């Protein structure tokens, strides 16, 4: 695997030893003697009147050859520190820029101890600004490829189970009403936000709050059906129109969430807990384990419901042939109502679990996985609940494992490509039947 990236993890050895560190030169010095210092530093962007500068030292000794880069506002530049550990980069505008130190160019056993290797910097009153990184003793731990593969595979199963909760709702709604529901993304976000509301605003114990959030999500699903989808079905609105209505609904709800919670990332209680080693390379947080157990139990419950109960059987009958089901005495509207409640509750649960997995709650968090949900549903077979489960786990594992080979910021691309390829080769999906394609 030549393209495999060596993932690096950081371990600070001892805080006491690490205090020996760093250095810092004050901005004033550069503001006053800017001309002088630039004579030494390997200066980039000298033609601009604004400049960032810094001095990289470790245990009072300058560190030479460390790569520093500046980016932002459509501008990019990089330089390396000189023999005195100094660097300076000119920038065209007096704006906010991101300054990054390339940790791999630091000497062995030295890392950026605090604040991270990438910082945002803005100018004060003057046109010069010094930016310093605090170095400390530590090591970058290299994890073996097979261990990473196992860990990612396990993460992928967890992510896939969570996707499945949301995807089954999409699939059941599509099967019974023919609607590709884009607003499912917002039902996912709703669950997480409801959990946040009950646990932080109402100060309920976290487990009770999350249980109430799932109930509220089910009620939300019911109200969407009663308030929007049922009247539209009665009105005889076409499926394409319904799909566009769901897009409008998705847009409106997304911005309603932004209106009320703002653009920041919020956390549920217990999110981002410490991970502990289960066995071998797999280490999980408590929330991960609980999340997987809940997903498996709920998914098994939905499976049992679909296969063994009267209403579950009626749901599958409607998915197969709605008019035949209706003429055999099945209350189609009643079943669709239950499907919407179930879809809302499952999506809400998925939202809560995802808030722990990411971790964090954001107004557009549902929109970020909407296409993965669609990819999972299409891969498994539109309208088949068990197909959605299979598709979700494949997509979840693929997304996590593929980030070993491609940069993490494009790890969703694989899933989206699968979506397109499935439609090319086997549009009915893994478990779908051919006549659904039309």
């Amino acid at each position: 695997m030549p393209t495999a990236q060596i993932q690096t993890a950081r371990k600070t050895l001892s805080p006491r030893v690490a205090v020996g560190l760093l250095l810092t030169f004050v901005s004033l010095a550069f503001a006053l003697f800017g001309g002088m210092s630039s004579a030494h530093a390997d200066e980039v962007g000298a033609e601009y009147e604004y400049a960032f500068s810094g001095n990289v030292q470790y245990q009072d000794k300058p560190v030479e050859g460390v790569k520093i880069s500046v980016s932002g506002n459509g501008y990019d530049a990089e330089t390396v520190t000189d023999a005195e550990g100094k660097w300076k980069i000119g920038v065209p505008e007096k704006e906010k820029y991101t300054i990054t130190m390339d940790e791999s160019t630091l000497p062995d056993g030295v890392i950026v101890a605090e604040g991270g290797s990438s910082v945002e910097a803005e100018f004060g009153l003057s046109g010069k600004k010094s930016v310093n990184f605090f170095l400390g003793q530590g090591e970058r731990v290299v994890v073996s490829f097979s261990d990473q593969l196992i860990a990612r595979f396990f993460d992928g199963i967890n992510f896939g189970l969570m996707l499945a909760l949301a995807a089954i709702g999409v699939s059941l709604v599509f099967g019974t009403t023919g609607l590709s529901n884009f607003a499912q993304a917002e039902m996912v976000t709703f669950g997480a936000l409801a959990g946040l509301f009950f646990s932080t605003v109402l100060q309920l114990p976290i487990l009770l709050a999350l249980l109430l959030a799932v109930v509220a999500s089910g009620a939300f699903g019911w109200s969407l059906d009663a308030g929007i989808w049922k009247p539209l079905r009665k009105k005889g609105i076409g499926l394409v129109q319904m799909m566009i209505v769901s897009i409008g609904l998705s847009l409106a709800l997304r911005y309603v969430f932004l209106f009320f919670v703002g653009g920041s990332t919020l956390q549920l209680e217990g999110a981002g807990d410490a991970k502990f080693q289960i066995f071998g390379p797999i280490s999980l947080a408590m929330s991960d384990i609980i999340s997987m157990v809940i997903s498996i139990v709920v998914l098994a419950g939905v499976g049992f419901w679909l296969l063994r109960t009267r209403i579950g059987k009626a749901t599958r009958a409607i998915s197969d042939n709605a008019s035949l089901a209706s003429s055999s005495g099945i209350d189609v509207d009643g079943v669709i109502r239950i499907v919407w409640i179930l879809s809302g509750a499952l999506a809400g649960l998925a939202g809560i679990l995802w808030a722990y997995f990411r971790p964090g709650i954001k107004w557009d968090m549902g929109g970020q996985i909407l296409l993965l949900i669609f990819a999972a549903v299409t891969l498994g077979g539109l309208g088949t609940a068990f197909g959605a489960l299979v598709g979700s786990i494949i997509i979840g594992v693929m997304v996590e494992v593929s980030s070993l080979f491609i940069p993490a910021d494009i790890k969703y691309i694989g899933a989206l490509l699968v979506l397109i390829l499935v439609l090319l080769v086997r549009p009915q999906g893994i478990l779908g039947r051919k006549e659904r394609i039309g």
Partner: protein
Amino acid sequence: MDILGMLSNTASWIISPTTIAYAIAAVGLSVHFGYAGLLNFGMAGFMALGAYGYAISILSFGWPWWAGILVGAGASVIFAVLLGIPTLRLRADYLAIVTIAAAEILRLLFTTMLFDEWTNSADGLGGYHDSFRAANPIPPGEYGFGPWMYNEKDWWVRIFGFVLLAIAVLIVWSLMRSPWGRVLRGIREDEDAVRALGKNVFAYKMQALIIGGVFGAMAGVVFALPSAVVPGSYVTSLTFFIWTIVLLGGAATVFGPVVGSVIFWVIMAALDNIIPALADAGILPITNIQAGVLRYIFVGVALMLIVIYRPQGIFGNKKELTFVK
């Protein structure tokens, strides 16, 4: 409240480059959806190809501005063909999901650090204006009247945008009254009937997808001309706004998308002026940030209401939209 300032600000949006860019994209989408019945939800992807094709050609390869535009158009043709081959034979809603996924793939590729050398990743590209401005025939100075006072650079962007928009409208108008346009509308109404007449339905749909896609790329160029290219602009919301514009004006009309874009942006600009002013004056009990968000909620609600109650749009004929089932 500075009512005059608000009116002037709102009026300036009638001919803003953004309005023109959205209008061109909407004309392209009307070819896809209104005339061919194709559910293209990847307009943001076509626009991103136009904008990045233009900016990268100039910045990385040092080509002149008109070559950049041709590169953007070429990229959108390739994108349309790649999208169309797997999906044009399938049911309509599959095309919707594939196009939206493809547009997201493009956005992620433009955002990733992997191609930072050419795309400058999340920070986007800027500073590619010299070549286009050098071709400006307008002598330096301030021109116009009332709210529409601009310098020669701003007018050059607007006039160029208008020319592209006029060409797009002219092409759609003449195509749709040609035999080709009649076949295309026939496909929209009943694909099997047209196939029974011996027409190659797949080829017609593909041609429509390419033509609308090139318009989308041109919209991306006009969008990029006055400012910068940032990958965060080409999200799915952009596509949904263009859908709102097309459905508002009338999907199967020549001028509907253009008028739709003007109405959309004038209302958006008016809300952007009025709501914060009301919030400041204490009439609406919301913060300034909330005031900025409120108008996007209205867009979503408006999209729902238009589709439910007037899917043919302001200027459309209901008979033209019976295919939307």
